[in-house]
């Protein structure tokens, strides 16, 4: 029963906060609401018996990425979002609304037809336990893990190239 209530509470917080994120005119509020949404997601991960994912969610998303967002918002110093929507005609907005409605119906339709099979967790300990993630990372997914280092290297080189001052 507790899990049931907790799930709906976290889910409601996540959805409402996400809705509010796109509804705000002040980007600062949006960013802070996004933290709320991420925090609620972390709660859902705990309910899924994935404590490690929950902690990383908080450290990386609610922590690092949000700080980045805040920095950008502050550096750009945009107090209020310019009303871009007014530049789109009424027709564009209506089309957008219809499209998102169709998409929502499509998702609802697809979800009602799903037959979800429980994915085996392979026994022994919760899926998200640090030990099991570590084992999987260094055995099954060892190559993917190593390949990620190349990905990060490319990203770093790219960031340096794009960010440094021109010296030609």
């Amino acid at each position: 029963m507790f899990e049931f209530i907790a799930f709906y509470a976290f889910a409601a917080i996540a959805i409402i906060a996400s809705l509010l994120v796109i509804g705000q005119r002040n980007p600062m509020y949006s960013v802070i609401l996004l933290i709320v949404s991420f925090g609620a997601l972390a709660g859902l991960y705990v309910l899924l018996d994935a404590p490690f994912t929950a902690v990383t969610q908080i450290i990386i998303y609610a922590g690092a990425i949000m700080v980045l967002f805040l920095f950008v918002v502050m550096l750009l110093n945009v107090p209020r979002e310019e009303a871009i929507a007014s530049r789109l005609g009424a027709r564009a907005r209506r089309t957008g609304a219809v499209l998102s409605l169709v998409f929502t119906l499509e998702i609802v339709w697809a979800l009602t037809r799903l037959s979800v099979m429980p994915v085996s967790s392979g026994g022994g300990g919760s899926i998200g336990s640090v030990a099991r993630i570590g084992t999987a990372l260094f055995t099954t997914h060892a190559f993917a893990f190593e390949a990620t280092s190349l990905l990060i290297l490319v990203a770093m080189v790219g960031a340096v190239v794009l960010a440094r001052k021109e010296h030609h």
Partner: protein
Amino acid sequence: MIDFYAVIPLLIVVLAGGAAMLAEAFRQPGERMPIAGLGVIGLVGAAAASCFLWNTDAQSYGAIRADNFALFINLILCGIGILTMIFSNDVVEREGLPAGEYYALTLFAIAGMMMMAAATDLLVIFIALEILSLAVYVLTGLRRSSAAGAEAAFKYFLLGAFSSAFFLYGIAFAFAISGSTRLDVIGTAIASGPGGTLALLAVGLLAIGFAFKVSAVPFHMWTPDAYEGAPTIVTAFMSTAVKAAAFGAFVRVFLSTLEPLQGHWVPVLSVISALTMILGTVVGVLQSNIKRMLAYSSIAHAGYLLLGIVAANASGKAAVLFYLAVYAIANLGALGIVALLGTADHEHDQLRDFAGLWQSRPGLAGLMTIFLLSLGGFPPTAGFIGKWYIFAAAVQEGHYWLAIIGVLSSVVSVFFYLRIVVMMYMTEDAAGPVRPPISATAMAALAVAMIVTFYLGILPTRVIDLALQSIQTIY
């Protein structure tokens, strides 16, 4: 130790990329270093390693499989890489691109591409896709002073990130069916299961991810802008190498793992293929910028390649591999020539810039003509044979209307390739900016590309047989 063999070609290219970075770090200001030569050495090494691995079907870490299919793509990628390095040696300095970073990113991109074509795990395919994409986004925006370059890179990056999300969603659904990201496990789950909604969602989302990377209609929007805004040498590289890698993974995922669902995805992909061929050709006719024109032409060529996947009998599959090689050489040759003629202040990418090229540079005009004719599908160039095999496979499989669209769009596309040729031969040399000199190495590389174009056009059987053998190894 055996476990390690399949990643050797990839590893060599990564090492070459690292060496390029180190060379840049130790470079004195103003010193010229032969970094391109370093890249060529690495790529030749990777090609040699690929040849040694031929027929061994080596597998590494349960994620990389150096079957003949992957090795065939590896060889195409090494060819593209070597030509790019040789052209870059002329171009990079002149255009004021940061040399060390340029070569390192290009080599890392090639490593990512090799990984993508050889990966047997969706997770690794995704990581490889991101490696090559990130590198190519940055390469697109490498000219920091150019507003068009920044716009191109930004568009490519935003849309690319969006398509990555689709691809990742597809992986999540595939995982939901099978409890694994390994292609073989997913394949077994799909073959045994009824192909429910989840499987169809996975197929659709993965198809969107791939269609974006190969720039198929309606996911092609970024292509003309990115290809036009990028430095020409980067356009040459990404229009060929990214396509080769993406089609490699596309073929592996759709023709082996997702083959049981063929009844579902063939109709969708045939419509996409038809639209891609038509739009690429029709809009291409209207362009006056060569890079933009060749961007639309590359969209059309993605349509022909998709047709090969749709008509996936044995000869159709082999035709995809063969066509990838043919297209890569011709497109790289044509765009390479545009890059070699460009300078920092003058890109030499307008149609009128080519006026009278025959009078001032007869050799270059001749080479350009041959590459363009190959793209258009004229006999006896390789392009003709490639298209012949693909359309023949489509007809054999009963996709008559697709084959008709393919032939008609090829005929129309000849119009815009010939516009360049007419401009080169039949117009007076415009008193435009002085065209830069071209090194003997670059000319030799172009000549080799031309010889290969003719070789594949006149004696294609040997390579087609190799393609046939290699495509069979993905099962």
